[in-house]
C-alpha cells in the first residue's frame, strides 16, 4: 500500500468572517495534504471561483503560490494550490493567509496590515483565510 504523508495545517480564523450576510458565501481552507515533495493546499467556496485568464494567487506571509488546479463541484468552487515541500516548510507561523485573483497589492502596501478589511472591500477577487499555523502529522494509508 502506498504510503504518504498527510500534513494538517491548523489555521486560526474566525469562521464567521467568511459568511457574508447577504450572500452567505463561505470560503475556507478545506485540506492541506502532502504528496511526495508537494503540498496540496485546497480552498473551497460555496460560490464557484471566477474562471478566467488571470491567476489565483495564494499568499502566505510574503510568499506567493500560484500553480493550481480549479474545479467545480455542483455549485461549489475548489482550488488546489501545489506548494513545493521545502517552500511549505519555510513558511512562518502567524502570517496572514489570503488568496487573490490577480496581483492585488504591492509587497509594501499598507493594506496588507489589515488584509481582512481589504478582502472585505474586494470580496470577489480577495479572500482572507486567517493566520497560518502548522502542525504536521504523518499517516499511513
Amino acid at each position, binding site marked *: 500500500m502506498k504510503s504518504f504523508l498527510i500534513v494538517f495545517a491548523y489555521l486560526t480564523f474566525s469562521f464567521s468572517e467568511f459568511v457574508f450576510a447577504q450572500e452567505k458565501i463561505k470560503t475556507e481552507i478545506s485540506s492541506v495534504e502532502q504528496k511526495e515533495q508537494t503540498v496540496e493546499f485546497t480552498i473551497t467556496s460555496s460560490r464557484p471561483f*471566477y*474562471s*478566467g*485568464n*488571470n*491567476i*489565483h494567487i495564494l499568499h502566505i506571509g510574503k510568499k506567493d503560490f*500560484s*500553480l*493550481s*488546479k*480549479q*474545479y*467545480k463541484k455542483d455549485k461549489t468552487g475548489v482550488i488546489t494550490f*501545489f506548494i513545493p515541500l521545502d517552500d511549505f516548510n519555510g513558511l512562518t507561523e502567524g502570517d496572514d493567509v489570503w488568496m487573490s*485573483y*490577480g*496581483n*492585488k*497589492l*504591492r*509587497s*509594501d*502596501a*499598507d*493594506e496588507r496590515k489589515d488584509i481582512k478589511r*481589504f478582502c472585505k*472591500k*474586494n470580496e*470577489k*477577487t480577495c479572500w482572507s483565510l486567517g493566520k497560518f499555523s502548522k502542525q504536521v502529522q504523518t499517516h499511513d494509508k
Partner: protein
Amino acid sequence: MINKSGLSVAVLIFVSTVFKSFAQNTPDPGVKGPFTVSTGSYNLGDLAFNAPSFPKDIEMRGSVHYPSSLNGGPFPVLVLMHGRHETCYKTSSPSVTTEDWPCISGYQSITSFEGYNYFATQMASHGYIVISISTNAINADDNSIADRGMAARAELMQHHLDLWKTYNTTGAAPFGTLFIGKLDMKNIGTMGHSRGGEGVVAHALLNKSLGSPYGIRAVLALAPVDFGRKILNGIPFMNIAPYCDGDVSDIQGVHFYDDARYSDPLDNAPKHSVLLMGANHNFFSTVWTPGSYIAGTSDDWDDNYGGNDPHCGTNSGTSKRLTPAKQQAAFNTYASAFFRVYIGNEMAFAPILEVDDIVPPVSSTLGTADVFVSYHAPKSMRLDVNREDSENAELTNTLGGAVSSSGLIKFDICADDAGEINCSVSSSPDKEPHSGYKSVLGMSQLGMSWDNPTDSYENIISANNKNFSIYKSLQFRAAIDFSEYTSVSDLDFTVQLIDATSNVSSKSISAYTHAMYHPPGSQSSELPKVMFNTIKIPISDFTGIDLTQVQKIKFLYNKSTQGSIYVVDLALSGTSNVTSAETVHTLPAIHIYPNPTSNVINIDFGKNDKSVYKFLLYNMFGELLYSSESISGNNQVIDLNNYSKGLYILSVLNGDSSQNYKITKN
C-alpha cells in the same frame, strides 16, 4: 477688448485649427470588403495532438473563413487563438459548466474559437483566409504548469499551420483540394485573445527558433496576459488594452510593447498599443458575451467588481462602458487596420496606427475620447531624444545632450530599478499597469509635477542632431498621475522648439491630442489607471524657427496652475530621416548602386575599412531580411531577386553611427 467680429474670427480660427488637427482623413479599414465569404470547419479529434510541452493530448479543431471565389491567390492568412475560458457545458442545463477535457458524457464543448467570427468574416471579405483554432484542452490544465500552457499554445498553433501546409499543397480531408495553392504561408498574421495573446507571442518566437518555416508578418495581442514577460522583436506588433478589463485587470499586456522597445538594437519593427476606454475583457468574443452564446458567458467587469464604478460599472448613471456591439466594432476596425497595413500592405491605413490621424474611423463607432494609440516607430525611422530609461536620463538624454528642469516640484525617474519598481501612484498594481511588480521591473518613466506656469523641462539637442527638418514628427508618450493631480480636468501644456538664435516656436498639445485626460473610475483597487498614450506633433507645425538648427526641446507647463504627469519615449520620427536614394549614394564614402534596382544592389566600400561596417536590410514593415556581420572584398552584393517590388531600408552601421538608405526594387 475683442469685438464681436474679432471674436468670431478668433473662434473660427480656433475651430479650424482643432478641426485640422482632429480631422479624420484616413480611409476606413473596418468597412466590408468586396469578397463574399464562405466558411468551413475541421475537427481531427479531441485528443489529436500530443504537444511536447503539455502533459495531456490536445484537440485539433478549428474554423476557416475565406473568399467564396478562391480564384487567383495565394491569399494572405490570419490565425486566431482564443483565451482561457470554461471548456464544457451540460447539454441539458447549459448554466452548468466545467473545466474538463475532453467533455464528459452529457456535456459538450464550448466553442470559444468561434467567438471572433465577425472579425474573420470582415477580413475574409477583403481577401484573407482566416483560421481560428480551439485550445480547450490547454485551458483545462494550464494553471498547474509553470508557463500556464504558453509553450503548448505555440506548439498547437504551429501544428495547425503544419496541417494547413498540407491543405495548401497536397490537400486533405475535410477540404479535399479546395485550398491547394490558395494560402500564402509566407504572409501570415496572428491574433490571440487573453492567454491566447501571450500564446501568439510565444508562437512567433517558436516559429523563429525553428528557422521561420512560416512567414509570421504581424502579431496582435488582444487584452493579453504577459505572465512570462516574453519579448518579441523583429515583427510588427499590436497590443489592444481594454480599460475596463475585469479579468486581466492590471492590463499587463502593455509590457509586450514596453519591454520590446529598446531590448534589441537591431529591432526595426514598429509597435502599437491601442487603449479602448469602456471596453471589458470578454465582449471581444461573442462566445464569452452574455446573450450571444448558450453557456459560460459573463461581463467580467461587473462580475468581479460590481456595476457601480462611474466609468466601468454598467449600473452607474455615468457609465462609459461599451456595448458588446460597439466593442466588437472597435476591435474589428483597429485589428483590420493593423493587418491590412502589415499583411495587406495597404499603407493608406497607417495614419490610424501611427497617431497621425487620431479620429477613430466611423466603423469603430468610437469618439476621439474612447480610443488612444501608442506608436513606437521602427528604429530606421526614429531618433530617440530621451528614452527616460535610467536615473541618468534626468541629467543626460539619449543623444548625449544635457537635461534640466526649472521649478518642478517633482522631477524623478521612477520604476527603473529593483528599489523603485513602481512610481508610488498606488499600492495596487492594477492602477499602474506599466510599472513592475515585486522583482519584475516595469517601464522606467520620468515623473514631473508643477505648480507654477514658468515650470519647465528641457532637453538640449546634441550638435549632430539639430536638423529636425528631416523628420516628420516630434512624439512622446505621457499619462497623468491621478494620485498627485486630482482635478478631473484634462491637462494641457506647451511644447517648444528653440533654435540656435533663441527663436521659439510653441505648440499646445491640446491641439493634437485628447490623451492628457484625467483617467476615469474610482473602483477600490482597480481604477483609475495610469495608461501611457502617444502624443505626436508634426515638425512642420513648428514655424518661425530654423528647423535645421534646433537647440532644445522644452516642455513649458504654462497651461494650468498645477499638474503631474509621466513621460517616456521622447523622439523624432518619420520617414524623412531616411536618405532619399533615387540615384546613387556616396555617403559616408560608400557607393550603393544601382538604385532603383530590379535584381541586386552593390555596396562599394572603396578604400574604407570594410571590416567596421555592418549592414541590415529591412522591408517597410521593419522585418529584418538580411544581416551581414563580416564583409569580404570591396564590393558587397545583396540579391533582391527573391523580394517583391517595393521599398526597402538598408541600414549601414559603423560603431554607434548609422545611416539609412531607401532602396527601391522595381
